[in-house]
């Protein structure tokens, strides 16, 4: 399942990323590593970004990027 499809306020496990080196790197920099727990806190309207919590850190992730992150329950 993709991160954009995840339900709000529910814990998911990050299983991997699809996409270019740049995005991958940026996510890993922010401590977004496969195996981590991720929770969608809120979403901006009109196809805007999602706000997620990973390891106690809040990160805004653009819609396009969130479509490249695979998670599972």
């Amino acid at each position, binding site marked *: 399942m993709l991160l954009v499809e995840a339900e709000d306020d529910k814990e998911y496990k990050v299983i991997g990323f699809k996409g270019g*080196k*740049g*995005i991958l*790197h*940026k*996510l*890993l*920099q*922010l*401590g977004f*590593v496969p195996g981590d727990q991720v929770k969608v806190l*809120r979403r*901006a*309207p*009109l*196809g*805007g*970004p999602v*706000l997620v919590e990973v*390891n*106690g*850190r*809040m*990160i*805004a*992730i*653009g*819609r*396009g*990027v969130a479509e490249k992150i695979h998670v599972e329950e």
Partner: protein
Amino acid sequence: MRCVLVGQPNSGKSTLFNQVAGYKAHTGNFSGTSVTYTESKVRVTGEVMDLVDLPGTYTLAGSNPAERETLKYLGSHHVDVIVNVIDASHLAQSLELTLEILDLGYPTVVALNMMDEAARYGMRIDGLKLQELIGAPVLPLIASKGRGIRNLFVTAQRFGEKQIIPPRPMYEPTIERAIQDIVQGLDGRRHTLNPQALAIKLIEADADNLDDNLKKMEIDSPDLLERIGRLQSEIRDLRGQDPIWVLSAERHVMAANLVRQVVELGNRQISWRDRLDNFLLHPFWGYLLLVTILLLFFEVIYGVGSALERPLLTVFNSLESTLIGLIGSETFIAGIVSGILQGVAGGVAIVLPYLVPFLLGLGFLEDIGYLPRVAFMMDALMHRIGLHGKAVVPFILGYGCNVPAVMSTRMLEDRRDRFLAATLATLVPCAARLAVVFGLVAFYLGPRIALGIYLFNLLTIAITGRLISAMLPEETPGLILEMPVYRMPTFRTMIQKAWFRAKEFVVEAWPILIVGSVVLAVLNYLDFADYLNILVRPFTWLLGLPGQTGVPLIFGILRKELSLIMLRQALGVADFSAALTHAQMISFTVFVVFYIPCLATLAVLRRELGYRAMLVISGLTVIIATIAALVARGFAWFFL
């Protein structure tokens, strides 16, 4: 003794630097506010030491400008001791960088900052235990309040003098074997890093340009290149990932293990900080509050600025007429004197009264942590013009003054985004152009038409954004932005920060403004007005404007409001409606709103993006201004 501060964005590293060195580094509750390093001589412990603030970086992999700058610095300067500032409330991620720093083999001291915030999360951190586990001193610090600073630097100095190097973290056997293998392959060839640290960096290196990088470091040999390639593919085969991710995953696990051993989790205190987002990021109230906050922001800036501008201009005007009276108005000297005075007045009376309150307000919004929220809310909209949420900041700034707007494009990751954002930001009508819109259109045609010009401006920016991004189709990398917790800024840092930024204008743009004023005054004295009018005639003819509007348009490049002030002189009337039709007023104003950025903005464009980009942007704005003014002319002909 050279002491280098390394830490992740938002760890309080620049705050620490500023506490010790006076305000020199750029801080903000926004990741990546500094991308270059700042160096200063400081005396904390009695001895003078060189303190260097490197840009905040999450890792040392070298994949973005901040990381490259950090690596470049460490690779090219002698460093006695590293002070690694870490955010205690985000201990696990912070320690990943710490482990990477320990790999480098420098004397290292860890400063555990933001313990107060960690306590709010219910974290109790055993610093002594952490010190024992990583083998480097760990000292508590509250940088914002200046606590723990002396102790930190006393320890750093001692470790730097004695060159006490903490042990590096141990990786899995395959990696360790690869490290030894490369150390052998280096065969005594030296670099600023020690052989083991260098070996780790080489394992992580990007295979694509490895050869060039080795040559640059002057350690290349066919054997070494072959060895690294072989080891990298062995690791890739065994672990199914590029070595860089393998090492980063290992550090991730090590850091998580460290945290498990040193942190005791209690209850999290829910405070106003946690509730604030329920309003500020609400899908309805959030936007309403955003508009309210921005309107209030501009209302205050405009109020303060215009209250200061009028009396200051009066002072300068009377000073000018007194001086000119003494010299005699027809002399060459008088032209130069009035040029200098106008340049000085432009800074003191017209730019600074708006810029200073603007920078104070912006600093507040930034430090409290609101700007990343704006980026979050505006991301979807910004994508339609080929940018992402972070680029909203230059736009907001642009309404005050294009100078800080262009400066703020620095926080965007790629050059294409910086160029596009800077181009669009220069099209945003700043406070000076607001004066023209209000003084001409609102005054003679009513506020509704003025509002119409603003909406037309937004539309033009949107279209330009789409066109430019169609020509530069490279996808914007997408928003990935850390949302910091809300923090209350201290009064002192706000003042210092505003001063720090205002100084950039005073030092870099203002002198150009003064020189430009003198040049134009001289041209004016030499009676160049007619020639200047001919120069601009193609545009004024196309827009159906009288030929005399050429000089005001040229002076407008110097300072946008001059195009209005000079217009009166050029047309020789006190009431514009006597010389210009309504349609002419509209096309003149629209042209002024879009064409060539003012001299101060040009100077900043050149510094941020280079000479060529400055020329390209200027050219583009002329084309956009001409088309937009023609459209406005057609519109006025049709409806008015």
